[in-house]
């Protein structure tokens, strides 16, 4: 499990902000600003952070659902960002995405069978019987059956719709799936059903996944490795056990301490972050977290820390956390 399926190098995605009379570009929103990530074959990598940190943008950029400003993304050895659109299409069936909102991501006027088969049609499976067969197999994989094929999305609950979204991604037999907040619109009792399903699929199909979420406790239960983002940058990345047992970056620590624990007996010391996340239009200089960090020193507002290995493949970008020895 050591080979990388996906390698992201110095990925940057800037959005232009137009203004003035001539609608010239007056500023950039640096949604993603130099992200490096590797995803190994067969693993689930979690990407967590609060709204506006750029996690969704990373997910879309690596599938080229939006065009990155610079950087490189290697998928199975292919540099995806330099491929022409026509060269990209044969790769598309291998990389799929599941969206957050199961209510708006399914065409309300198509039957479930058609929704799932659409990808097959686009990718040249011409035989209707074969399409039907593949749709059926995929539905079974996500715990649904033949009777569901002729129904419309509105006839299903949120959890079932999310299963349909997953089936749509799986029908082309991809090796890699981006899951963008796949359970945050679901009730807890349903959420756990979908999380278990994802883990089963990972094992059964040897799938590689990028799991984007804001909920740390959900990420802990699904992912093998976890990357934490803040304002367009990855601030910490490590294996699940290591990150949750021994979080290092002050932001990760604050994020974890902010999660309410469903046990009234446990009273933790809570790190309450002051203020809001700064605007990515004008992020703080040097370490982007220094404006809200309770440990910040003078250096933090002058020099940008780099992501360093603290040992045991635990990477952290903070001046106050240096490798031992």
């Amino acid at each position, binding site marked *: 499990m050591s080979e990388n399926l996906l390698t992201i190098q110095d990925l940057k995605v800037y959005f232009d902000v137009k203004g003035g009379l001539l609608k010239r570009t007056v500023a950039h929103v640096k949604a993603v600003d130099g992200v490096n990530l590797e995803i190994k074959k067969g693993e689930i990598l979690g990407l967590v952070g*609060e*709204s506006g940190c750029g996690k969704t943008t990373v997910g879309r950029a690596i599938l080229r659902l939006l065009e990155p400003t610079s950087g490189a993304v290697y998928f199975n050895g292919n540099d995806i960002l330099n491929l022409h659109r026509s060269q990209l299409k044969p790769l598309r069936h291998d990389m799929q995405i599941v969206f957050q909102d199961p209510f708006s991501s399914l065409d309300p006027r198509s039957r479930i069978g058609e929704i799932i088969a659409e990808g097959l049609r686009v990718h040249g499976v011409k035989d209707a019987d074969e399409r039907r067969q593949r749709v059926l197999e995929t539905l079974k994989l996500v715990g649904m059956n033949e009777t569901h094929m002729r129904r419309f999305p509105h006839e299903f*609950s*949120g*959890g*079932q719709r999310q299963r349909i979204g997953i089936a749509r991604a799986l029908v082309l037999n991809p090796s890699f799936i981006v899951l963008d907040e796949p359970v945050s619109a679901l*009730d*807890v*009792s*349903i*959420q*756990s*059903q979908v*999380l*278990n399903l994802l*883990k089963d699929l990972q094992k059964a199909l040897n799938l590689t996944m990028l799991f984007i979420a*804001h*909920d*740390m*406790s*959900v990420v*802990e*239960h699904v992912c093998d490795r976890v990357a934490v983002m803040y304002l367009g940058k990855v601030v910490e990345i490590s294996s*699940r*056990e290591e990150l*949750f*047992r021994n979080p290092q970056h002050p932001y990760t620590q*604050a*994020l*974890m*301490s*902010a*999660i*309410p*624990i*469903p*046990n*009234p*007996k446990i009273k933790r010391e*809570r790190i*309450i*972050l002051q*203020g*809001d*996340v700064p605007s990515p239009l004008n992020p703080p200089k040097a370490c982007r977290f220094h404006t809200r960090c309770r440990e910040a020193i003078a250096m933090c507002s002058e020099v940008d820390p780099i992501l360093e290995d603290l040992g045991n493949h635990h990477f952290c970008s903070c001046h106050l956390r240096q490798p031992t020895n």
Partner: protein
Amino acid sequence: MTDEPMLKVENLRTYFFTRGGTVKAVDGVNFEVKRGQVLALVGESGCGKSMTALSIIQLVDKPGKIVEGTVIFDGENLLERNRSQMTEIRGKRISMIFQEPRSSLNPVIRVGKQLDEVLKLHYEDMDKHERRQRVIQLLKDVGIPDPERRANNYPHEMSGGMAQRVMIAMGIACEPELLIADEPTTALDVTIQAQVLDLIRKLRDEMQMAVIFITHDMGVVAEMADDVAVMYAGTIVEHAAVGSLFEEPMHPYTQGLIASIPILGEFKDRLEVIPGTVPSLIDMPPGCRFASRCKARVEHNLEKCLHEEPELLEVREGHQVRCWLYEENA
């Protein structure tokens, strides 16, 4: 300090009369809240928790109608008040905070002005200058930095957390005796949620408000509540003090709910699940509403659950549960 409850809801039923049939959104709910106490109403989407709150302040829209019950607030039945009397009570003595701060604020009016309107409506003797000072003070109380400048902002110029603080400021502007908070932190990031929960707790302590806190998040419940009422398909299935509920959840639904939450720092390879989904509120099956999803019913081979609906009974001091499993204990 009296032990009289601030609010007492008895046998509340709110039905929606639709073409497809009668939706029994709230179907016989009983509870009380004391001064300075936080009651959490917890449950999943569609269980009737928000509708219970809206029924209390009578903001149920058509085709919904409160068909039965009493809501005793400070000794008087609110359901017998007329419209103008309710307007007087709403905002001044009972106020409500909603989930989506941005859709509850008027987008074309500065937030300071919106707060001012609340004060103008309820405090006729306050002059313009006094109101302005009170607005600034309120914004300061809810932790908005630079309140003089922020009062002149429009809602879109504020972040979600900021806008929610303005909503809370509006909610407490008239120092209500009862505050109803409907998922006040669900749309916020966790670090901002922590700030807002802190704020609500502080205000409760300072003003001795009674609070009804509506949420689906058991973590938030554990942190905020004194008492918890768990709702399922329009009824309360379990009601207990927060410690007792988490230590020994009795209703199979509550047990499933607690077990299915991923807990930070307690990695499980597989999470517990509650099979199936909530039955339709239009044609509720006879018997216990949870029966079709209940593992305990199968284990104990209880036939009764499918035919007769259990009552909410006190099976231990202060711990009520609606389940046939505890029939003899009651």
